[in-house]
């Protein structure tokens, strides 16, 4: 094993250290020799804990870096691949995140960066036995996928979330060459779908697949190849098909894979009934292990009930593709007693949410998405009363994402009183600058109530008409806040100053269209190195302000995205992040690193 090697290494290192500088913990008298330390440390999986471990002493730093198998890089530009492979010699799994989150909303131009290829070429040399790669918001080309498929013989798991730049040709390469593939999880939107024949590239010998998610692809795949694949992969536990798979085909797949724990259906309705619904229902009944169901496109009251037999053990139900009415949701939820997480469209209305409160006492997470977010007239959707109804029936609720058109301070205060355990509170009042529609006051008190009442709050997104008072509350009370999203809020620099002056745990701050200027930016000078990143767009920052920041804080990358429309002196989009890798070398012409 490696232990002998490492022991020699440790001894060498200790000998070369000046005894005067050696602290007691790093002498050979260390009570935890490597053989003990490493197996113990290898049980620690949280990367935050591992960070802490590595700071204890040199022995622990070394033991930790040798025992680490998975590295998580939250910002691909905060470190270079060379530094990573230099520190961690035995990595088997890499998670990389790239673009700022606001790129999901088209605020980051194309070709901004976060190309995975430079990482892959370094990883191929250092970790030839890499098994897992999980990418989020990275630019991934077909060449990168081919490179990945050809250079990592032990590769097992690929997860692409919100990535772009590749096509189904890249998936063909993965399917063809990764002989031990266990996981292929494609959840993103920037893919060029050239056809479904990538699925047929899985060789007949591949039996190791455990996770297959191609729900976000559009093209039809060969159903017979899919059926054969599902049949021979006996360990398949997650199968999420795309919309082209119809009910009949789904039934066949389910009969082949009753061991599934997560199912994403295809189109969940049909016009030509080739098989009575009772059959489908029985099939669902035979899937005893289902914990998650998603997909359910186009479903309705005729077909949705076929899943009832499988609902009793469901913990996560993702209905965000099924525009259900309130009563349809209610009928369904009666069967879902164990539900912990629920995603719905706002077509269910307040009445649907009342049903949630009535039937799902164990609910921990609720996400209500807008079926028609850009609609202004004739908006239905959900209101504050649905929100309150859920909070009354679901005291364990700690994660909420709620899109609505109207809200009141009183309702939010009631919600957090009912559910003080919130860790993630993301409220999006879709009408910009909307006050409390009953009192016409700003929504400051709502978020004040949230931060005062919920001591475990980690993530907050605010909306509605907000003054600096909201931020005063946040800075003062949100001691555990790590992620804050702000849009169209605040009255002056004070708002941002409050937040930067408080919130000791803040890691990610993303701001758009707020009246915060240079003074506010510079008030957080000392804070930014403790944060992962700061995004500010369409605020009142100028190039000079950003230059001052860049000068004072050399270990930050202060990037300004140039916008030909705005004045030269304005800094329209600013992205600031800590880094040990120096300024980006792959910045496109419109990104200026100050």
């Amino acid at each position, binding site marked *: 094993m490696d232990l002998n090697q490492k022991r020699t290494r440790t001894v060498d290192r200790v000998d070369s250290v000046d005894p005067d500088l050696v602290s007691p913990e790093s002498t050979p008298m260390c009570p935890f020799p490597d053989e003990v330390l490493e197996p113990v440390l290898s049980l620690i999986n949280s990367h935050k804990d591992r960070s802490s471990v590595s700071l204890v002493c040199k022995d622990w730093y070394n033991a930790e870096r040798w025992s680490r198998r998975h590295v998580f890089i939250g910002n691909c530009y905060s470190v270079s691949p060379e530094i990573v492979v230099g520190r961690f010699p035995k990595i088997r799994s890499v998670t990389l995140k790239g673009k700022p989150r606001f790129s999901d909303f088209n605020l980051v131009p194309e070709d901004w960066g976060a190309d995975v290829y430079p990482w892959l070429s370094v990883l191929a040399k250092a970790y030839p036995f890499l098994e897992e790669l999980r990418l989020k918001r990275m630019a991934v080309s077909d060449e990168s996928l081919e490179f990945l498929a050809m250079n990592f013989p032990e590769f097992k798991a690929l997860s692409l979330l919100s990535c772009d730049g590749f096509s189904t040709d890249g998936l063909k390469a993965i399917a063809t060459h990764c002989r031990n593939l266990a996981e292929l999880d494609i959840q993103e939107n920037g893919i060029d779908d050239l056809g479904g024949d990538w699925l047929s590239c899985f060789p007949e010998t591949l039996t190791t697949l455990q996770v297959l998610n191609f729900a976000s692809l559009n093209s039809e795949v060969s159903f017979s190849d899919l059926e054969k694949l599902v049949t021979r992969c006996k360990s398949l536990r997650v199968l999420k098909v795309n*919309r082209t798979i119809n009910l009949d085909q789904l039934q066949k797949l389910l009969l082949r894979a009753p061991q599934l724990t997560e199912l994403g259906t295809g189109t969940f309705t049909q016009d030509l009934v080739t098989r009575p619904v009772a059959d489908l229902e029985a099939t669902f009944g035979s899937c005893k292990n289902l914990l998650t169901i998603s997909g359910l496109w186009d479903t309705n009251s005729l077909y949705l009930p076929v899943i009832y037999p499988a609902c009793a053990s469901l913990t996560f139900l993702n209905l965000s593709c099924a525009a259900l*009415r309130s009563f349809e949701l209610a009928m369904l939820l009666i069967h879902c007693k164990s539900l912990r997480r629920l995603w719905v469209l706002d077509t269910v209305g307040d009445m649907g949410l009342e049903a949630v409160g009535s039937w799902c006492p164990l609910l921990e997470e609720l996400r209500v998405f807008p079926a028609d977010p850009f609609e202004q007239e004739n908006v239905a959707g959900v209101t504050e009363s649905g929100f309150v109804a859920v909070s009354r029936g679901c005291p364990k609720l700690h994660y909420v994402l709620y899109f609505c058109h109207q809200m009141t301070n009183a309702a939010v205060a009631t919600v957090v009183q009912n559910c003080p355990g919130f860790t993630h509170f993301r409220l999006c009042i879709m009408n910009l600058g909307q006050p409390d529609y009953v009192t016409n006051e700003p929504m400051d008190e709502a978020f004040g109530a949230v931060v005062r009442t919920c001591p475990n709050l980690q993530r907050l997104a605010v909306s509605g008409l907000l003054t600096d008072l909201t931020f005063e509350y946040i800075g003062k009370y949100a001691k555990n806040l790590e992620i804050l999203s702000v849009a169209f809020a605040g009255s002056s620099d004070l708002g941002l100053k409050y937040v930067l002056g408080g919130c000791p745990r803040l890691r990610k701050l993303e701001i758009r269209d707020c009246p915060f200027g240079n003074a506010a930016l510079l008030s957080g000078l000392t804070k930014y190195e403790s944060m992962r990143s700061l995004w500010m767009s369409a605020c009142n920052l100028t190039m000079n302000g950003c230059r001052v920041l860049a000068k004072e804080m050399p270990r930050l990358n202060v990037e300004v995205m140039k916008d030909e429309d705005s004045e030269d002196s304005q800094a329209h989009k600013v992205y600031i992040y800590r880094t040990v890798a120096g300024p980006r070398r792959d910045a496109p012409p419109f990104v200026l690193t100050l």
Partner: protein
Amino acid sequence: MDVTLGLLDHIPAGDDGGGGGGGGGVPSGGSTTNRSILTVSKEDNKNTMVMSSEVTSGESLDGLELGLGLSIGGGGGGGGGGLKSKMVANGGGGGWSQYARILTAKDFHTSLVSKPNSCSSSSSVNIPNSSTSGTKRIATDSVSPPNGTSVVGWPPVSKAHRMPTLANQIKSPTENFVSKPEQNKSKNRTLGIKDYSDERNGFSNKKYRSVKVNMDGTLIGRKVDLNAHTSYEMLAQTLHEMFFSRWSSTEAVKPSRLLDGTSEFVLTYEDKDGDCMLVGDVPWEMFLSSVKRLRIMKNSDSNELAPRFQETNDSV
């Protein structure tokens, strides 16, 4: 709030397709989207543009026609009927039966017209697509967007976590069985996937088809969803919005003039053989099947191209 927008048929491959920044070099990616309701306009208020249009395809109109008069319970024949009774049983006391009724044209009219064109409403500059909105969106052509809706990236609904739905079709706030249009849509699609003629097959099945557009003199190209357009005029309008909106006050570049060769710029495309052709010569469908990318050239460069025929307004 990284919620994915429910889009009509699928996920637009080109969320990055908004391009670095059109003619004006506006770097923010106003994205093109598929042919559904989503419209993301440019961030800068004075330069707001609508990037793509909403559904006008024959598919949806077919769905409209077929849907009239069909009943929910009758949809599945025996199976449907059987299920209906089951629904009633499960519904616990007839609470269901009131919803399982025959849809009439009245329901359609209400449910569809009451569903405004969110695409139009989110544009603050102009609504180029409203004239081609199709029958479903007539109610909203006159809707002027409230202040602040024409903002790129708002509401913060990302495509990443949600999958496309037809949810946008359902607008009635009442408890009617308005999911019927969806059913018809899926019916058409289920049949249509196999039945589409070859001509449309390549790109109708792909619900979204983007091509790159580059303009001479502009560094950063854009992407346009061709399936979101049904005519050259529409396309020209969109391109005009993308590249020339700042110049809209000048006569030099009007949308129609992009097509007829009288402006300073001329619209060309590269076809699948790699040849550079003038846009507008062939029927729209043929154009769709052969276009690979678009290019807005300065008129002086286009002399070597084939002479064109007179363009009329009804060319498509």
